[in-house]
């Protein structure tokens, strides 16, 4: 057997497909050997992918794109051959802020705006990374309610495991983070979930599988079998009857050590306010339309200059062609029909000009 495929991930519920594939022998059945590396930060994942210390990783799509543009230092050569999950994030405010918002039956976005307007100091909101889906969805949501995320709030980056503590301690007014932390905040009485990110953009892409381009080019066969195993794991992860077993697996003290009950709540069939989906509605499809949305929002906030060709970047990084043989072999979708999924990837779409990748400019 060749040397193992090194896959990096963080302690999060949406790392489940990799953990489930390993625990159920799906990698072994594909004849590949995988070595999972639990990393402390997204920066570590990105650095290690960039320098080939990891071959693949569970990744934040906007961070993969930012790394390829060179926004965080080196220009990385990374590709996204598949998406891993949809949804799962929650926008949470402290119990104190929530109490001030509870009057009136209007939309949470509008009530938040009423609260933001008279404030003397900008309230602090935490996200897990600058280039995260969480940050871009929070900013999009605030802006669609009429707030300016650069002027009306202060954004800080706090590791997901620490957001609930920061909220309870009063050092932040709110956060947008992935499961299970919104439910944990509610269970602990530290905060209240205002809105799940699937209510902002239904079926929004969340994590992706990212691989080094050099590795992908050199190992097409390994990549094919890796993708097949992960596709199979995603099917399992979407079955409500598997959820108790998966939650127990994610809670393994020798593994991710996540809170079991809160994991169960975020998995399909769970009781959480916002659920993660792994397979249905072609959650695995790495749509270039998704990459374009992330890039469009990054440009909206002035993080990209006008010279950046976002269409070319989306096509360079998001590579559904790399997934075609695996979905075909799994009988999920005929390889020839795969490009037609692009047209449906953004649906249903919020009723908002600023949503489409270039739409916000035309207002």
């Amino acid at each position, binding site marked *: 057997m060749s040397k193992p495929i090194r896959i990096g991930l963080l302690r999060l519920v949406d790392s489940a497909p990799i953990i489930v594939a390993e625990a159920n022998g799906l990698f072994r059945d594909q004849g590949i050997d995988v070595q999972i590396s639990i990393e402390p930060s997204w920066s570590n994942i990105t650095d290690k992918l960039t320098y080939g210390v990891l071959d693949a990783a569970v990744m934040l799509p906007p961070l993969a794109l930012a790394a390829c543009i060179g926004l965080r230092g080196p220009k990385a050569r990374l590709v996204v051959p598949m998406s891993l999950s949809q949804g799962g994030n929650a926008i949470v405010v402290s119990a104190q802020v929530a109490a001030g918002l509870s009057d009136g039956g209007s939309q949470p976005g509008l009530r938040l705006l009423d609260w933001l307007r008279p404030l003397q100091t900008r309230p602090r909101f935490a996200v897990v990374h600058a280039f995260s889906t969480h940050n871009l969805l929070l900013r999009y949501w605030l802006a669609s309610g009429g707030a300016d995320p650069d002027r009306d709030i202060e*954004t800080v980056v706090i590791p997901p495991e620490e957001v609930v503590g920061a909220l309870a301690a009063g050092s932040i007014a709110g956060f947008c983070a992935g499961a299970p932390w919104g439910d944990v905040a509610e269970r602990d009485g530290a905060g209240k979930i205002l809105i799940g990110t699937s209510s902002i953009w239904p079926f929004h892409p969340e994590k992706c599988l990212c691989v080094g381009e050099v590795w992908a080019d050199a190992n097409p066969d390994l990549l094919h079998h890796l993708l097949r195993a992960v596709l199979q794991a995603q099917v399992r992860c979407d079955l409500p009857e598997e959820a108790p077993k998966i939650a127990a697996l994610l809670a393994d003290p020798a593994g991710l050590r996540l809170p079991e009950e809160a994991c169960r709540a975020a998995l399909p069939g769970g009781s959480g306010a916002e659920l993660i989906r792994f397979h249905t509605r072609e959650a695995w499809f790495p749509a270039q339309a998704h990459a374009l949305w992330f890039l469009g929002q990054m440009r909206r906030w002035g993080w990209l200059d006008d010279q950046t060709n976002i269409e070319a970047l989306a096509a360079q990084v998001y590579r559904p062609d790399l997934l075609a043989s695996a979905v075909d072999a799994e009988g999920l979708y005929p390889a020839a029909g795969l490009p037609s999924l692009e047209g449906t990837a953004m649906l249903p779409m919020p009723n908002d000009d600023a949503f489409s990748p270039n739409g916000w400019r035309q207002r």
Partner: protein
Amino acid sequence: VKVLLADDDAERAGAVARVLAADAGLVVVRLKPNESLADAVALLAPDVVLVDMARPDRDALDGIRQVAALNTRPVVLFVDEDDPAFMEEAINAGVSSYNAIGMPPPDVKPILRAAVALFRRHRQAQDDLKQAESRLSERSVIDRAKAILIKQRHMSEPDAYKWLRGSAMSRGRRVVDVASDLIKSMEGNAG
């Protein structure tokens, strides 16, 4: 050049600070325990930030220019585009370096190189210690297995060791694994 050092391992941080302090052109400031990395960067405006890669709060430096308070001096990851092997070496040692942008870049590489050397030495010392500890615990496992053989099969101590070594060799396994299996099977029988 002001260097902010974010490393909670006091011994290692001390060693890095001492080495860097030998350069009269460098001022080294250490991040206090529980102090936020982003706040320290905003407050101290360092030219270079050295960060232990095991810290989860390292993500606060990524894209700090895009999200952080207006008065924060932005930093970017230091990269030597011409020397990927050195970058890989730094990652494997577990230390990364950021530098302030918008000003003439200080000569960061020698600073990072010194940190990499000390981080690597520290890791080596830890690995050695772990290995020494595991040898000690292996020794005690083998001793317990020998004691079982001596007591239950009335072997002499040299014979007990010979038996363990012989069955390890015939099965292509390590002596400590055979010893541990023997202990487990005896405990299993007892329970």
